[in-house]
């Protein structure tokens, strides 16, 4: 996997680079800000871009804006956004895209899981932090379509949203693959999502939509 890293803090940038190298990947470029990020991505055509939300000069949402631009120009390049804390406002429109991930920065310490998420994103899958998923599926607003789900179905939904495959979900919940499939079928039905190959992303679309409608009061 060829990786581009955009992170303003030198130590962290180097640490992340080493992390990927240790994991057998190649870091083709690392940058301290978002200025030349798109150009670098265009030049290197990496499999994955790792980008911090807060980058110079204002340290607000430079990273997210760069991520959006990259996904627009190169939809096939995986983008993994790292953040210090949970924020849904900036990223909610990116959530349903193929090859997009959003994780809290300290997830990198769980090296195996982090690299798995990164690879998933590089391959067009998704990876959402469980805290962000919790936010997206949390009750809010007047009508809550998620309210009809059983507790188990909700667990499955959250893991789907995190980007796990049915098999991974089954492992995580200590269930059989068949049971997970049944839950998935039921929850898709309840959320009015037609069954298909790309159930995960549809789930994300629904969550993003819910979140967006909440924002509009």
């Amino acid at each position, binding site marked *: 996997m060829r990786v581009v890293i955009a992170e303003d*803090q030198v*130590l*962290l940038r180097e*640490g*992340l680079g*080493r*992390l990927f190298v*240790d994991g057998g990947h190649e870091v083709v470029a690392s940058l301290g800000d978002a200025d030349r990020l798109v150009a670098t991505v265009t030049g290197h055509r990496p499999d994955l871009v790792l980008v911090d939300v*807060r980058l110079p000069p204002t*340290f*607000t949402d430079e990273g997210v804006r760069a991520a959006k631009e990259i996904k627009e120009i190169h939809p096939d390049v995986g983008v993994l956004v790292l953040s*210090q*804390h*949970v*924020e*849904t*406002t*900036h990223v909610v429109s990116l959530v349903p895209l193929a090859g997009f991930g959003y994780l809290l*920065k*300290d997830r*990198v*310490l*769980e*090296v195996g899981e982090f690299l798995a998420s990164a690879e998933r994103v590089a391959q067009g899958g998704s990876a959402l932090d469980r805290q962000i998923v*919790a*936010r997206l599926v*949390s*009750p*809010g*607003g*007047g009508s809550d379509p998620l309210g009809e789900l059983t507790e188990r179905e909700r667990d499955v939904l959250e893991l789907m949203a995190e980007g796990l495959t049915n098999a991974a979900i089954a492992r995580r919940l200590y269930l059989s693959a068949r049971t997970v499939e049944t839950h998935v079928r039921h929850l898709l039905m309840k959320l009015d999502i037609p069954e298909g190959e790309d159930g995960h992303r549809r789930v994300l679309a629904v969550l993003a939509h819910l979140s967006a409608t*909440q*924002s*509009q*009061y």
Partner: protein
Amino acid sequence: MKGLQLKAIPVTLFGLTLAITVAAVALSLGLEPLYDTLLYALLGLTLGAAGAVVASQHPRNRIGWMFLGLAILNVLADLAQGWGLRAAEQGWPGGAAGDWIQTWSWMPTGLGWVLIFLLFPDGRLISRRWRFVPWCAALALVLGVPGRSLSPDRDPEFASGSNPLAVEALPTDALMAVGMTLHLVAALGAVVALVVRLRRSHGVERQQLKWFALAATIAVVVLSLSFALWDHSALIRVLAALSLTSLPIAACVAILRYRLYDIDVVISRTLVYGALTVALAAAFGATTLVLGAALGSGSAWTTAAATLVVATAFRPLRARLQDAVDRRFNRARHAALERIAGFLEDLRAGRAAPERIEELLRDILADPRLELRFFLPESEVYVDANGRAATDPPGDGRERTAIGRAGAPLAMVIHGPAGEGGPEGLPQVVEAAGLAIEIARLRVDLRRHLDEVKASRARLVAAGDEERRRIERDLHDGAQQRLVSIGLALRHAQHELNGASPSAGHALEGAVAEIAVAIEELRELARGVRPAQLDAGLAPALRELAGRAPLRVEVAATAERFPHGVEAAAYFVASEGLTNAIKHARASRVVLRAAPGDGRLVVSVADDGVGGARASDGSGLAGLSDRVIAQGGALSIESDPGTGTRLTAELPCGW
């Protein structure tokens, strides 16, 4: 230099008057009643003094010079009279000349009075049409003086018993008749001119004319009475001289504008006490008459009873007369003072706001441009009713009248010029309204202080918010990142070990786990300081808050953005309300709302718990209230037992 010379002339003329007076008094002393000598000397000196003062202060005003001239004419006549008397007594020569001057000297004096009546207060005629009056008076003098002084009829007025200048051939009677008629016409014209002036005048000139007209009226009344009573009472002769003396004094007060506005009080007092004297005398007379018939005249009881009647009637009668006089002669002022009294009554009863005094003054004084400026003793500035520092550049055509209370400046009235339909009776009205103005001033002062306190509190909260934001940034971007870096370094070390030392690998694993816990703790800490989500807006921040709650929280929040301080206050209201619901209310469901409306942001936290929460229960709610008030908002709690709790904050977002 020129000014000094100009000032020297009136003083010199007065000195001359004084010298002649001394001579005249010395000559006359003992040869006529003492009061005659002294009172006419006093008249001359008063005329001279008034003339000298006015002429030196306002040399361009002819009135002062005319008084000086009149003074000299008067004392010269006195001197002539004294000479005549003394010469006759001592057998000096030339006594007849004094007697002769005495026969006609009152005529030029009369002309002087006519001119003063005609030209007061500015020394100019009302219009050219009135020029006939001085001509008339001058002709009267030209015809009257020979008509009188050359007449054989004057013989009794000479010590010798005959007029040495009598000319039998002259038609002196006819000259005298025409002269006197012209003199009367001129005098009448002068009086009419004064009345016309008085009616047309306003402002300062009106006050000036009132002074002079009052003295003139008294003089006319007393002089008329004196014609009838001259031979019967010495008192009336004294009064006649005194009433004439009062004219230059009144004129002097009027022209120098010293206590000009007191004239209304003086007129009112004169009328009241004049009427009071007449009424009480009548009451005394009537009582004496009635009781005298019953008890026999001369009884001590009668006098005692009459005195008692007068004493008892004095106070109520005076009050009634004062009221009647005010009503009749000062209707506008009377009404104005009554309105102010009514306003003060309303003020006392709490029916009126003291700030309305400005509006009331504007209304009463019929001056729409009138404004009040209150003096703040602490900062020593004048401010308007809203507490803003007054910037009224001078030269806007308005006048400024300072109002004091107990010797300290209280306020300033800015009003139209008094001369042109401006406020008449301003001093009395303002004095009556003093209490209301003082209260309004205190309230303005208080409001200003409160505004300052509010502003500084808002600044403190804003500074606190900014500090929280900085700390939150430092935690997220500093400490937290650094921990992640260290964690990554440890992971790298672990990788490098590659299972070579399982115990070291274990230790590293433990250290990384510790670091992960520390990061999570830092994140929680930063969120408590200030949720980073607030940067994205109130709605995301509230949803984040709801998402972390261990119970069902519905969020209905506007996506609109507000000033930082308002959003922060709203967030902390929601946060504190939610915390209370979780900790104390035993609620199962909470609704967070944030809705804009009417220039405000209304935030509410409603739960379905046990209720019964009070602001004093926890310092959390009290601190919250401070924060909301600092934003100019209000916090309310509805929490009856059993009906859940609803915490509502209304935050103005216009600033």
